[in-house]
């Protein structure tokens, strides 16, 4: 989010406690471990985890193993490092320790996302998110990579709308926060399970492109079937947690309207 609270003055040289929900692998029991760490000024959650990795001793003095987590860009643009921090789903790279634990003895809790299967510790498998993009044919069906001149022109206004939608980094925050989206470990059931806000928004992105619209009817077919837009309860938890400020409520509205029009058109054309 572009706005954030004014920074509190962090206490230099403080030690804080980091409590982490860990598991050895998928389906293995969870356990909690607490580490005491002296954060670096300006450091983020990742730098805490790196410190723990270099010397993984718990507060009880027990030697543990380096924590496993997922990360990439370290500047909130790849989506990899998403986890639940103090109960809220967000990117760990852009979560600054000075902001959430400015005082000595402050506690931070780190948990893996709950809507995706755990691989190990804080690392979850978000393959389903990418499967949704296949299900929705989230691409522009170009004629191939040969030189065929420019694409369709668009106004600066249209570009501005599509650009924001296109900054979705498949992080899954919106799915973690969504009451309708649940953990599904059986891949064969993904096709019928709730799509969720990122999928709705990506469908809108491609429906709004002149060439992408060639597949609009296929997309709306999926969106009006089981797991589609009708299952959205409009709780709007999704839009509140999207780190890229993607207007998910608007996307849900746009897809809702398009699905209705699609149904009417189908009804008139006599296709069922």
């Amino acid at each position: 989010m572009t706005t954030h609270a004014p920074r509190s003055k962090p206490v230099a040289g403080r030690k804080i406690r980091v409590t982490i929900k860990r598991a050895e692998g998928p389906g293995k029991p969870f356990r909690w471990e607490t580490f005491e760490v002296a954060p670096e000024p300006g450091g983020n959650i990742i730098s805490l985890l790196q410190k723990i990795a270099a010397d993984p001793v718990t507060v009880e003095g027990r030697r543990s193993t380096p924590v496993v987590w997922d990360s990439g860009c370290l500047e909130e643009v790849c989506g990899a490092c998403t986890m639940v921090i103090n109960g809220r789903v967000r990117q760990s790279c852009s979560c600054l320790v000075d902001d959430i634990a400015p005082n000595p003895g402050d506690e931070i809790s780190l948990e893996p996302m709950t809507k995706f299967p755990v691989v190990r510790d804080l690392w979850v498998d978000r393959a389903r998110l990418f499967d949704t993009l296949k299900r929705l044919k989230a691409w522009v069906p170009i004629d191939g990579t040969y030189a065929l001149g420019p694409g369709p022109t668009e106004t600066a206004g249209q570009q501005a709308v599509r650009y924001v939608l296109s900054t979705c980094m498949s992080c899954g925050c919106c799915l973690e926060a969504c009451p309708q989206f649940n953990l599904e470990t059986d891949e064969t059931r993904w096709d019928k399970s709730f799509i969720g806000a990122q999928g709705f928004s990506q469908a809108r992105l491609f429906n709004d492109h002149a060439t992408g619209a060639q597949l609009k009817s296929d997309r709306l077919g999926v969106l009006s079937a089981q797991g589609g837009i009708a299952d959205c309860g409009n709780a709007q938890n999704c839009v509140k947690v999207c780190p890229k400020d993607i207007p998910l409520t608007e996307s849900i509205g746009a897809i809702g309207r398009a699905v209705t029009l699609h149904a009417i058109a189908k009804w008139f054309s006599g296709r069922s």
Partner: protein
Amino acid sequence: MAQHRVIVVGGGLAGLAASVRIAEAGLPVDLFSMVPVKRSHSVCAQGGINACNDVARQQGYSEYQHFDETIYGGDFLADQPPVLEMTNWAPKIIDLLDRMGVPFNRSPEGRRDLRLFGGSLFKRTHFAGATTGQQLLYALDEQTRRYEVEGKVNKYEFWEFLWPVITGEGDARRCVGIVAQDLRTMQIRAFRADAVIMATGGCGLVFGKSTNSIICTGGAASRCYQAGAWYANPEMIQVHPTAIPGADKCRLMSESARGEGGRVWVPRKKGDTRAPRDIPDAERYYFLEERYPKYGNLVTRDIATREIFSICVDDAMGVGGENVVYLDLTHKDPDYLTRKLGGILEIYEKFVGEDPRKVPMKIFPAVHYSMGGLWTTYARGAFRPGAPAGEHKSGSLPPVGTALGVGMRYGAHENMRTNITGLYAFGEVNFAFHGANRLGANALLSCLFDGLFSGVSVVNYVREGEPAAKPAESLPAEVFDACVRQETAKADRLLATAAQGPGGPETNPYVIAREMGEEMTAASTVVKSGPRLEQAAAKIASLRERFSRVRLEDAAAWSNQSLSFTRALGDMLILAQIIIRAGAMRKESRGAHYRVDYPDRNDAEFMKTTCAAYDPGAADPHQITYRPIDADLVAPRARTYGKVDG
């Protein structure tokens, strides 16, 4: 008929462009990546991608001038013909991206908007907000997914490339597959392929903190080097002038900030404690503008970096006595800034907690890009001028047009192939195109160009070269099994060290990595010298000795990240050695490589490619030689960017 297959290692821009091009030609692709390809490092690229365009053309610019700028920008170290082909292709590549739906910023009339970038006086950089790399990567990711659904691309995500499988000896060596490890199950196995494309990106992590993603270790390139592929110009590392120093990484403030009018300055008075907005214009030292009136803040990166470094380190004029200078955008309209630069301004706000629309940003140089990489060759194209041209003046007629194949022969098997048949290198891991210094917004271009142009070469090689008669599928299993045994033994040895218990900082992989990064940054970045490099060589040697006793703290047989990290650390230490060695041997200054003890460029001795070859049997395994470059298109000239004294 035998089924041919191609392996692409790396799903950044270069790997995805190659995958799409090859799948489209009808060859199945197995695509390997340590991360889901959509999360590859290319996602970080901010500023844009260069190409000649209609507006610039009517102002006198041309593809040829883009070529000339790139050669001059690279300080005459790049082989010239491939650069010519690349800049000729650039406008077509932009059109293709446009068709794929990349939301390029638009002008009021709905045309693609353009911005200024370093090393050019023309607007020739296309952009999508300040997250151009993300938008380009996503477009390629979407096209790849389409082929995945059609069954033409097979993705192996969370798999790590460990070793290339090579048959034969000497010139008869041929790459026929890879060994890789599943980072979740830890399974190690071989995969056969008729050609292997390395598209594994750069090696910023060798320097500890850089602008790169956490996976940019260079480990994959180092493994190819150790398996016999040559590594070229390792000493050519770009340090970007404007990054936010951070605890875990240095976050880039794209050159587009200066392209959109950002000004770099420090208070004229040393130790001035006033807030930046209280310092009147006359008391600000806009040192780039004063020293380079022609290019101003948009001089090339190596020059801007050295000027900032010297202001802070030599003159102690950094803001508040620290190693930072101002990058100031506060004179621009905030809405305009949000529209053009939103993505990077948000990064600054998030990580520093100040609004760069209101307060000048505090920045310092950071390691950013590796011009060096795996050595590759190419087939020269048709253009052979009798004599090399001088500086190209805008508005004058280019000596050659943009027909296909004037720079490189289209479809030739050897384009961007390493010294090993069947093993190719595309994107940042390829040493070609950028010489001793890369121009901003030319990297994304070279990644896409490699994938699209040389992807066709790979297809032709597979269909017409050795694999036509002898597909990888038909080869005996032993060569693959031997490589699997080798890699399993390596992994087992590292895992077994966990049983010894922790050995303290001496043998902790994270501590060794930190010391390597600090030493490399101190000795081998902005300013180098013979004695300092010698000292660094000794330090890296001692780190390698400690690494031979390294101890893991995690013996898990499932999703063991410590194993992957530690293994890559061993490979990074080897890259560090050749970066230092090549830097010490290049006794001149050129582009990003600046030696205080040899401050001038020395074309007679060093206008040559540094080429490192690895001989595991030798007492000193790193054999460094120099190869001549193809430089008969443009004659070398002094590279001053119009600097004035003062």
